[in-house]
């Protein structure tokens, strides 16, 4: 008799960075996983072992018995597809699936960049600037703020008349955009958008969110 194959799912994370998206999705899906902390402050992300897994040296990365992958949005899409019974994504090929993809991509392609531009030029400790020695640039901070504003207004209009991005059902899109809103909360950018604040407060009530974010 052969022993059952060990089904390990390994998350490489550094809370509360974007690896929280994977952690939140893993908790929502009830997946048994092990966590590896990649200490960004001490440069563990630039070690050869980690670069073999994530060649950019950023978190998150995910390793299973069958594959290893990176990109926070891609990992959440994949995990949710692997657990269709949890109903966190619309049926493949449906019109709802188009909206789902749109908001999932919107999180990383539209929201993350301006929030990080603002963070990097207002809140990032000077000792951790990239490249080393760079200073905060107020023009870039303002550009981050204004780019975020255009996108926050779009989200506010959508979420103003519904519970979740896709309507009445929570989905992976709420996880991905939800973490962008978490980042906007850390930077203070979300304060001008009460609809987004209220939406995020509702997401924070979810047990899986609380397990992932350590509330």
């Amino acid at each position, binding site marked *: 008799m052969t022993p059952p194959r060990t089904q390990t799912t390994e998350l490489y994370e550094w809370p509360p960075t974007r690896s929280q998206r994977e952690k939140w999705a893993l908790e929502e899906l009830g997946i048994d996983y092990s966590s590896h902390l990649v200490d960004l402050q001490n440069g563990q992300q630039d070690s050869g072992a980690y670069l073999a897994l994530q060649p950019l040296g950023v978190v998150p990365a995910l390793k299973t018995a069958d594959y290893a992958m990176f990109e926070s949005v891609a990992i959440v899409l994949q995990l949710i597809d692997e657990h269709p019974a949890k109903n966190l994504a619309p049926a493949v*090929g449906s*019109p709802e699936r188009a909206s789902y993809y749109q908001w999932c991509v919107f999180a990383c392609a539209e929201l993350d960049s301006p929030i990080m531009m603002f963070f990097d030029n207002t809140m990032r400790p000077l000792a951790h600037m990239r*490249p080393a020695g760079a200073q905060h640039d107020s*023009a870039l901070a303002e550009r981050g703020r204004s780019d975020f504003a255009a996108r926050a207004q779009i989200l506010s209009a959508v979420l103003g008349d519904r519970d979740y991005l896709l309507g009445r059902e929570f989905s992976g899109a709420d996880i991905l955009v939800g973490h962008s809103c978490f980042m906007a909360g850390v930077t203070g950018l979300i304060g001008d958008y009460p609809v987004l604040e209220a939406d995020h407060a509702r997401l924070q009530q979810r047990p899986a969110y609380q397990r992932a974010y350590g509330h």
Partner: protein
Amino acid sequence: MKELFEFPPTRSNRTKWALEELGVDYTSHVVSLPNGENNAANYKAIHPLGVVPAYRTATFTIFESVAIVLQLLDEHPAAGLAPAIGSPERAAYYQWSVFSCCELDPALFDVMSTRCICRPNSACPRLRNAGGTGSRRGVRFSQTPLKAGTTSWARHFPAPTLRWDIPVTGRRIPD
């Protein structure tokens, strides 16, 4: 009816290429960015950020070039352009699809917007910040030709992969 809102050769070409690969019958609407058609109210009703591409069918309207391609490929499984849902290959497919818009585009757009489009004495903060913090994760550019290792994500790729030798022949976007 399938409608593509595009302005070649921007990222709307991703969507156009996918439509052509799949043999989808579609109508093209050129949204002139130099003429500001992207900021007209009737276009912003389709794409609230006022950028291309957007895609409209009888049942839905979406934007984000990567999202549109993912959706189109799912709608045409017989074309075999996307691995099966839930397969390990699908993980790699998602990873590289997202990599294109979230890693490559910001880095390349930094270079393009500062070296190919902005005027030399532009007030563009990215240009003024040459060699400085860059807009994103240590991505930076210099006035010299781009070489491997100049960006954090580029360290692991050979120089020819990165060299931005494509002449920009498209219409110039004013500052």
